[in-house]
């Protein structure tokens, strides 16, 4: 079979699968914590920022579409925005054209799953087969305007918003959020996951005190931080920057597991 045709057919199947899953998951986010959702806090915030307006949803996804197109041409990478931004926003836009009732459109997993699947088929096929034909001037606007803006949103704007929310939610939550936020930025390169876990631990202790659930939660969080700092080689970095020699066995351990830092 012709290679382009193979890519086109496989892309259509892939697009239907990711659109279906992401559409349903994103709609379920609006029913959290009662239902388990799938997406991201920034996806939730951006969907709300478009305030129930089909044109706003479409143009938001459209901007990232060019970004994804540009990244596909350059590196074959569709960019993380496909599942987080383009599919949710275009599915929302399409399902809102005739009906502005949120409960029946954006917040309805069935409608979002099927609309998402349709968007996915077209989007992924288009990205994988036509990436080379994108106008260069739009490509540069996408990468030089939307790129920095979404980077600033991820860091530092979102960490600060979550940090302030943690601090305003009480002394214990603020304390845990601050410590885990700072550590997360060191270990994972972004403070948001740490602050979120800080809010989880702090609020859990506020509401229930130290019981089996909060204790195992805290242990899991500590294990997570220890494991990720080892996997990303932060322990060696710390020793080096404190001008303490890295012991030979530690270096060998990192070498043999392939975790000697990025």
């Amino acid at each position: 079979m012709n290679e382009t045709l193979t890519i086109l057919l496989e892309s259509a199947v892939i697009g239907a699968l990711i659109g279906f899953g992401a559409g349903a998951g994103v709609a379920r986010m609006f029913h959290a914590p009662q239902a388990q959702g799938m997406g991201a806090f920034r996806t939730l915030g951006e969907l709300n920022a478009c305030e129930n307006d089909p044109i706003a949803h479409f143009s938001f996804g459209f901007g990232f579409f060019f970004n994804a197109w540009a990244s596909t041409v350059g590196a074959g990478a569709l960019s993380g925005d496909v599942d987080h931004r383009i599919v949710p926003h275009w599915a929302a836009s399409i399902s809102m054209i005739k009906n502005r009732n949120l409960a029946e459109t954006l917040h309805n997993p069935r409608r979002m799953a099927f609309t998402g699947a349709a968007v996915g088929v077209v989007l992924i096929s288009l990205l994988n087969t036509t990436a080379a034909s994108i106008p260069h001037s739009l490509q540069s606007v996408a990468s030089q305007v939307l790129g920095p803006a979404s980077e600033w949103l991820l860091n530092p704007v979102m960490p600060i918003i979550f940090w302030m929310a943690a601090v305003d939610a009480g002394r214990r939550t603020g304390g845990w959020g601050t410590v885990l936020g700072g550590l997360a930025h060191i270990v994972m390169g972004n403070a948001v996951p740490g602050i979120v876990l800080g809010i989880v631990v702090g609020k859990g202790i506020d509401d229930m005190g130290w019981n089996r659930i909060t204790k195992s939660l805290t242990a899991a969080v500590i294990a997570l931080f220890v494991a990720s700092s080892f996997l990303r080689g932060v322990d060696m970095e710390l020793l080096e920057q404190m001008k303490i020699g890295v012991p030979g066995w530690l270096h060998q351990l990192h070498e043999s597991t392939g975790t000697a830092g990025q």
Partner: protein
Amino acid sequence: MSTTDIGVSDDTGEGKDGGRPRPWEGGFWLSEWAFPLFVASLAAGIFAGTHLYYTYQTGAFNEVAVVALLKAGMENGSYGAAAAFGAGFLFARIIEAPMVGILDIGGSLQTGVGIGIPAMLLAGGITAPLEHFWLALPTGAVIGLAIGWLVLVIRRATVNSPNAGSTFGADVMMGAGNSAGRYLGPLVILAAATASVPVGLGSTLGAILFYWWKKPLTGGAILGAMAAGLFFPITK
């Protein structure tokens, strides 16, 4: 709490079937056991996307920098960096997901299932699921089912356990997540103004027009910047 407390309306009374139960109180689409199926669907697509990248060099669902980790492994055979990076994210997101009610697609599925697990398979010499499309789909689906199931198990043991008197601050995080998006419009205008003068002017004009038309200014800022960029390309 209900999601109404954080400014998101779940009003179902306006439709024809006014007064029906709130969405999470019934039905397949918001039921607990449907969740692993949605994760499986998305994970199958993402894993098959990595297959597409492995065979045809296009279609991986991730940022260029992360895909580069996998690419480095495909070229020189050392998959350690990609595997560790992906596994770390996957682990973190599976713990976080049941607590906050949202499984992060980027960290868990795009990076964990799309980069980390393929890197681990390739490091172990298993190439078949990445070479064959019809093997990639079920592999991804099984991994997705396992992740979805694990999230539900942790969720039952913590947030949904009978003696849990806490939502673990979900309301605090939803509030922060909701307000984060409002910052995007102004950030786009700032980035456009930094990129070039015509693009900055276009973005500002687009934003103010949308604001006057009572539409969210983010959309106007993006369309304005793109329209200006089409006529006055950024030269840098």
